[in-house]
């Protein structure tokens, strides 16, 4: 007699919660063809700059269709090393301190698998990207969520870290600028966090995928602070800054011993990142900076627009210093995040993501992505305003 197929699913996978994003995705998908403006996306509205796409086509024409070194093309690692030295003020040897991965997502998975023993505790700030907590669960680690607050513009504070810390904490996961809040830390705040990490002997994973989209001041990488490079795995990629989400290309930089450990997992599970994506990434680093600056300026203007509109309509919204997400409070409407998002979608056909999809601490907020053209952005703001006024 056959049993329920569910029995075959590993226990820790079966107990993973379904992503709140996915529920909402279904809801939006049901309304396809109904003039929905989606601010629910998590990627640039720009397509990859043509010179990058063209370089990939050229690589294909030249017959670049084979495996690369497990670490990734040496030329690409050299470019990554120079890029990181120039923009992040940390130097990594291309030979053994840089690993090219299938997006930051793979790099993050490798890091958890390489460094987290069952039962190890991982601290991460929340609201945060949806995959942190599940990734920790998949390696049988214990997730310790550290709240960030609107009053701090969603910067991670050392006070919150100290309050959440408990014996057994081994890893600190950072994502600054942060998806979904756009929160970042000032250099001073980051120095305090670095002190805390050294004091508690924590290994730091720093996902800096939105660093190029820092609108005010300069992005500071925690790896560049004294004594931190040796305990930090820097995770970065091409998706956001170079509008290359679909290419799935990223990288990890860190001490040679740590990169070697991640490489072991990578070589058995992935072998290498797709060569075409690596070739495109090479072109992006060599000639793509102008496009990055142009896109950042565009996002900057859109941010100013959407943040101003949210505040004008009574949805308190801090100005995110980085990323392309606004994270307004919807508390004044009296609705929950889910109700707000669902009702807004139903009545005004604008999709935003409930803040709770990014963890408990996102309660009372929604995420609105402003990587959308002005026409839609302005129309979406008008509709949200109408919705909010209709609630009064």
């Amino acid at each position, binding site marked *: 007699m056959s049993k329920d197929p569910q029995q075959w699913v590993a226990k820790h996978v079966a107990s993973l919660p379904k*992503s709140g*994003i996915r529920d*909402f*995705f279904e809801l*939006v*998908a049901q309304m*396809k063809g109904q003039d*929905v403006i*989606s601010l*629910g*996306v*998590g*990627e640039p*509205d*720009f*397509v990859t700059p043509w010179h990058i796409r063209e370089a990939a086509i050229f690589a294909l024409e030249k017959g670049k269709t084979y495996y690369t070194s497990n670490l990734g093309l040496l030329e690409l690692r050299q470019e990554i090393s120079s890029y990181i030295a120039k923009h992040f003020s940390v130097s990594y040897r291309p030979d053994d301190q840089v690993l090219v991965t299938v997006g930051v997502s793979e790099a993050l998975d490798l890091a958890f698998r390489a460094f987290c023993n069952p039962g190890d505790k991982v601290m991460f700030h929340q609201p945060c*990207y*949806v*995959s942190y907590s599940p990734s920790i669960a998949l390696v049988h680690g214990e997730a310790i969520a550290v709240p960030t607050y609107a009053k701090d513009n969603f910067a991670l504070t050392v006070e919150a870290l100290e309050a959440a810390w408990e014996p057994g904490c081994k890893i600190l996961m950072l994502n600054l600028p942060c*998806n979904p809040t756009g929160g970042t830390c000032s250099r001073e705040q980051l120095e305090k966090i670095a002190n805390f990490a050294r004091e508690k002997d924590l290994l730091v994973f720093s996902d800096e995928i939105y660093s190029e989209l820092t609108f005010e001041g300069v992005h500071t990488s925690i790896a560049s602070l004294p004594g931190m490079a040796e305990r930090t795995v820097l995770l970065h990629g091409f998706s956001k800054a170079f509008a290359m989400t679909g290419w799935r290309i990223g990288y990890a930089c860190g001490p040679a011993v740590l990169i070697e450990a991640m490489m072991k997992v990578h070589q058995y599970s992935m072998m290498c990142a797709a060569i075409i994506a690596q070739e495109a990434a090479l072109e992006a680093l060599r000639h793509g900076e102008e496009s990055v600056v142009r896109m950042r300026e*565009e996002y900057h*203007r*859109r941010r*100013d*627009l959407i943040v*101003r*509109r949210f505040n004008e309509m009574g949805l308190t919204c801090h100005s995110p210093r980085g990323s392309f997400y606004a994270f307004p409070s919807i508390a004044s409407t009296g609705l929950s995040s889910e109700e707000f998002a669902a009702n807004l979608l139903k009545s005004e056909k604008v*999709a935003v*993501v409930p803040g709770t*999809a990014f963890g408990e601490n996102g309660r009372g907020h929604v995420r609105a992505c402003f990587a959308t053209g*002005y*026409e839609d952005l*302005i129309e979406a*703001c008008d509709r949200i305003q109408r919705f909010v006024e209709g609630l009064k």
Partner: protein
Amino acid sequence: MNPVLNLLIDGGSLTQAQMAQVAGLSEAEVNQHLEQLKKDKIFLGWRPVLDLSRAAAAAATVRAVIEVRITPERGGGFNHLADRISRFDEVETCHLMSGSYDLLVFVKGSSLQNVARFVSEKLSTMEGVLSTATHFQLRCYKDHGVMLEQQDSSNERLEVAP
């Protein structure tokens, strides 16, 4: 820098109402900036980007690019003759170039014959014009930064993504 000028340089595809929203100004302020730019002779006018190969727009317009070699005049250089050539209605654009010819002239006419007549009767007979080489446009792929066919599709993004 004038905030409206910034938006115009970056594409100029926004309406005044949209510019107001983007720049955080009132529409009246945007119009004031536009007026100032007009006064300063920076902003000279709007023009549409049209795909004239479409049936509805195919008003039988023929376009050509003409390389013109001219003799510079003492005292006036190339400017005097360039100015005279530019004044013809047929001339849409006129640039002074470095290289093997002097002026690059973009012209349009209602038929091939009309453009040919303009070149043979007006342009090449002007005093100071040494030679012309006329190239007729067969097809336009990109105009003023706009791809006419084969636009990138970014509307296939997932509606909701983490």
